[in-house]
């Protein structure tokens, strides 16, 4: 019998055959089981294919060359196949990314691509396209004493709250440098990529909080910051397109669940498009702008 590790993340009890040090340990009856083993070559009745994934009703297959293959089933099981039968940090990187993304969608949860911070008694999500500075601005708030709920994937549960993820962030070296965080004690996500795992420990808020705002960050090539509240179809489309791995939704046949969740959620929250000057990102200035504009407080 292999050892079993029990964790809680994203509001779910997770039992794993291998250690996932990024997660917080817990007890209880598992909602999700993660194990090592043989993963199917392909899925029957594929509904949607990507370059590296296949999705079908209640089944999902992901392949990362030279790293691992992942099989996600019924929203409650993830099987991982690696050549070494061992799950190192690179194997876990894609597990905690795309594989969990598919699992959330299978469970009818809404994963938003972004990072969530606790402001007062509610949570705000920083969302937007890759490279826009979601994790960077969240890390800036953490350094200012605000608490993190989730980095990269924010899960909205059935009560329209953000479920706490796990107390880790992934931050690029240039941002760590500008935040004056030394990289010596941190581990790189992969040998060739200067992006680091940054534990947040005390800066983590380990309870779910109602979502109040989503900030969709965009860049612009003029000076100054701009804010626009999105309404109606714009609001709907902004949140839809920032759903984590939105293209999985159709393949998993979850369009209806997704649509209904958005319709339930959107009247309860505000969505703002926040445009910042392109580069370099001025994190302090950007954080101060957000604090002043939205009266954000710990």
């Amino acid at each position, binding site marked *: 019998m292999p050892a079993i590790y029990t964790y809680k993340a994203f509001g779910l009890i997770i039992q794993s055959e291998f250690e996932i040090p990024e997660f917080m340990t817990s007890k209880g009856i598992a909602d999700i089981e993660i194990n090592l083993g043989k993963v199917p070559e392909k899925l029957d009745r594929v509904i949607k294919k990507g*370059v590296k994934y296949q999705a079908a009703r209640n089944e999902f297959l992901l392949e990362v060359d030279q790293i691992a293959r992942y099989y996600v089933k019924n929203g409650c099981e993830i099987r991982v196949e690696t050549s070494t039968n061992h799950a190192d940090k690179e194997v876990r990187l894609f597990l905690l990314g*795309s594989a969990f993304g598919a699992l959330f969608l299978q469970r009818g949860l809404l994963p938003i691509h972004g990072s969530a911070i606790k402001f007062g008694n509610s949570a705000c999500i920083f969302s937007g*396209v*890759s490279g826009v500075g979601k994790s960077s601005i969240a890390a800036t708030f953490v350094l200012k004493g605000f608490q993190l709920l989730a980095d990269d994937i924010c899960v909205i549960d059935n009560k329209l709250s953000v479920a706490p993820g796990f107390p880790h962030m992934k931050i690029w070296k240039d941002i760590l440098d500008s935040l004056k965080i030394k990289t010596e004690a941190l581990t790189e996500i992969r040998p060739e*990529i200067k992006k680091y795992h940054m534990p947040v420990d005390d800066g983590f808020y380990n309870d779910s909080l109602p979502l109040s705002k989503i900030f969709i960050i965009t860049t612009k090539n003029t000076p100054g910051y701009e804010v626009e509240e999105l309404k109606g179809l714009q609001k709907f489309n902004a949140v839809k397109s920032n759903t984590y791995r939105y*293209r999985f939704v159709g393949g998993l046949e979850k369009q209806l669940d997704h649509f209904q969740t958005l319709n339930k959620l959107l009247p309860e929250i505000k969505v703002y498009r926040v445009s910042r000057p392109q580069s370099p990102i001025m994190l302090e200035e950007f954080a101060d702008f957000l604090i002043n504009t939205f009266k954000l407080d710990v």
Partner: protein
Amino acid sequence: MYKKNVIWLASYPKSGNTWFRVFITNLLSNSDAPANINDLSETSISSSRKVFDDYTGLSSSDLSFEEIDKLRPEVYRMQSEESSELLFKKVHDKFYFVAENQPLFPPEISKGVIYLIRNPLDVIVSFAYHSSRPVNKMISALNNPEYAFCDKNDKLQNQLRQILGSWSGHVQSWTEQKLIPVHVIRYEDMINNTFESFSKAIRFLSIEKTDQQIRDAIQKSDFRILSGQEKISGFKEKMIQSKSFFRKGKIGDWRNHLDKEIQDKIIENHKDAMIKFGYLTSESKLIY
């Protein structure tokens, strides 16, 4: 079974690619009004990080440059498969192989390449202005066989890495490859013989449009319209440091900016390609 429905609009930067994209957008649009420069679609940029992430199901920010390169041809194949229309994709990468027998741009889905080329002396001036860098910095870009965009591994850049190589290396890579039919357009001909130049390209792509439709699209893509739109509402593809994207677009503007030493450095390095494409006589006299 692959469809040959992708057209690569390839060029070294500042060689008329955006102008050509606006022209194509106008040509294929049914609207009477000129196309909005800010509505050129994101999916038409071959180095788009978003498109890559969407189609692979992975975060490009978790992958190495080599891993991304290996997957890019598959992303293009999938886009081709899903599209019932012609796909025009802007490219600044040079043409190269990501693995044995595997070019970055898959021939089996390619209808053709429009390769846009411009006098490298004018490219330098425009490129320097566009990136707010001194002209001598740009010489080292044009002369550098390893030159690339977005190739830092310590930060997340807005686009995927693009290897350009040197100016003449770029020209050669596209114009001498034999796997995808290529049609070369000189920026200078786009200015001096606009109709002929654009209609030849349209014939090469076997797109059925009348002379009048081509003339209308040219008119809607006039430099004054593009720079006018930019003055009013900006252009999202401009770099933050530069004043405007559509600056002058003139032929021979380099004479106002480049001294003899800089000219010689460029000519020395790119002589063969400059002669071949009519920028230099065999006696090394500049034509434009």
